[in-house]
């Protein structure tokens, strides 16, 4: 069910990136798509009733002999969290580049509307 909502968010982002005419709205649509995929990736690691994948002193004391097996059996999956961290950084870089190109295009053409910045044809 939650996965279907992620997919809906992805579709909203795709609609926004394809249909809208304002350049900034296209950039925002792409950002929404990116965050929808990140959300999907995080939700893949979820385990109902699991703990956060952090080991601290109280955990070490309470689960004395079997830290590893307890950890594997009860924690949520930490690998998607690392993947999403990397993916957020990539999205940040991509969005920054896109916005700076939008600002430069506004300086050159005077408008944000993509139907008017069409000097390249063919």
């Amino acid at each position: 069910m939650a996965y279907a909502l992620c997919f809906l968010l992805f579709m909203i982002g795709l609609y926004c990136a394809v249909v809208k005419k304002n350049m900034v709205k296209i950039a925002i649509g792409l950002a929404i798509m990116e965050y929808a995929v990140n959300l999907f990736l995080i939700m893949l690691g979820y385990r109902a009733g699991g703990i956060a994948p952090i080991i601290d002193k109280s955990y070490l004391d309470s689960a004395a002999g079997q830290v590893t097996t307890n950890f594997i059996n009860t924690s949520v999956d930490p690998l998607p969290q690392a993947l999403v961290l990397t993916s957020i950084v990539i999205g940040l870089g991509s969005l920054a580049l896109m916005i700076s190109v939008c600002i430069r295009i506004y300086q050159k053409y005077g408008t944000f509307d993509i139907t008017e910045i069409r000097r390249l044809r063919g």
Partner: protein
Amino acid sequence: MSVPLPAFIAIPLVTAFLLPIFGNKGKSFATALANLAVISLLVLAICCIGRYDVYEVGKWSIPLGINLVLDGLSSLLLLAISVISTAAMLFSIRYMERYTAKAKFFSLFLLMVAGMNGLVLSGDIFNMFVFLEIASLASYALVGFGCEHEELEASFKYMVLGSIGSIFVLFGIALVYGNTGTLNMAYISKAIQDSGLNAGLAFALALFVTGFSLKAALVPFHAWLPDAHPSAPAPISAMLSGILIKTLGIYALMRVIFNVFGISISLGWLLVVLGLLSMVSGAFLAIGQWDFKRLLAYSSISQAGYCVLGIGLGGLIIARAGSNITTTELAWASLAFLGGLFHLVNHAVYKALLFLTSGSVEMATGTRQMKQMGGLAERMPVTRTTCTVASAAIVGIPPFSGFWSKLILVWAAIQAHYIWVAAIIVFVSLCTLIMYLKVQRYVFLGELPENLQEIKENRFSMLVPMVALACLCLLMGLLVLVPDLKQSILDPAVKVLTDGLAYSSSIIQK
């Protein structure tokens, strides 16, 4: 002596971060350092020919850690990347004098090379995505480098479509992780072989094909390429058209389809149809162009279609034969793969050379419109010769390398009983002949217009890479004719594709 594989990624990355420190004062030092980095990568790539290596980063063993895999396909592409990037870097020493931020240009260029090297070497699918993004972001910035009107517009269009492609790939990776529980390509392949394709994995495969075809500019997804490649500075166009669309698009498609998911009849037909569409529409759209670089960009779409067609044909032969494949069928499939891969490497060389000559022409005349040029043959003899060599190679005239790769593709198509495919290949070659005759007639022959009376040939440092690539065009035919070269460079790459799913078992045993 084994080459440590992360050196291919570490050398350009470290140099890319050293260069912005120099700023405007140390421009010549920055140039020398960047060229040194690229030439050392070329030397390392030549040392890696014919080796097989699996490198575990950080000494973490395979399902826990990331590994870098150097097999035949990776070494072939590493060689191609280093040759083209060396030529483009040497050309840009003189060409980039017109732009202001030269050290930043080299920094972005080296980041793009690092991204491509990492993509080709990676054995882990998320690592492949990260390097895909590094190379893509660097190329978005490089396309808009001059910050004129058209360059920014082209860069924005390229960025939007490229980002959509990357997000599709990330979604595919998320689905694959959700269904198999691992990210290492060998282990994913093993899990898919054990459990078969369910709905999630089939959707992930569709997303991968869409995302990588957007990066490779195959025909339904090619809308960004005719704007992005002409507007970029000439050495960047050479890199983009020559090697970036091949690595990010076609290599990634090959890796994911043949080694991870396994080829099937519908996938083989999909690749063949994509290849045919790209070939035909690229050729038709290119004939009507009057802008020199735009014609070359449409021609790139057409020739990328040849590579995908060859690979799709080989895959179709293997999938059609099923599990008991006879040796003759395996030989035909290997021939088709050989044609596709050899055409990929050939096209990298001569398309890079064509873009470099167009850059040289643009630098001398100041325009890209063919109607305003003419008669440059007597003033720019070296550029004219190299452009003629490259045009002859791309059309497929006998001693040049293009002839051999097209011959192999036609022969493989006939052997597999697809005569209509062979007929289409010959027809598109005729269209390619028409478009390059147009280039020769309007740019080099004819009369010199009055405003171009004082142009002269470009400087030595721009001519050296063009002449070197032209010699390669002539000599690369030897790669298939001389059996030693063929066995050490091309055959291991073909073997990776014909073995297909055996990739996973050879890595897991190591």
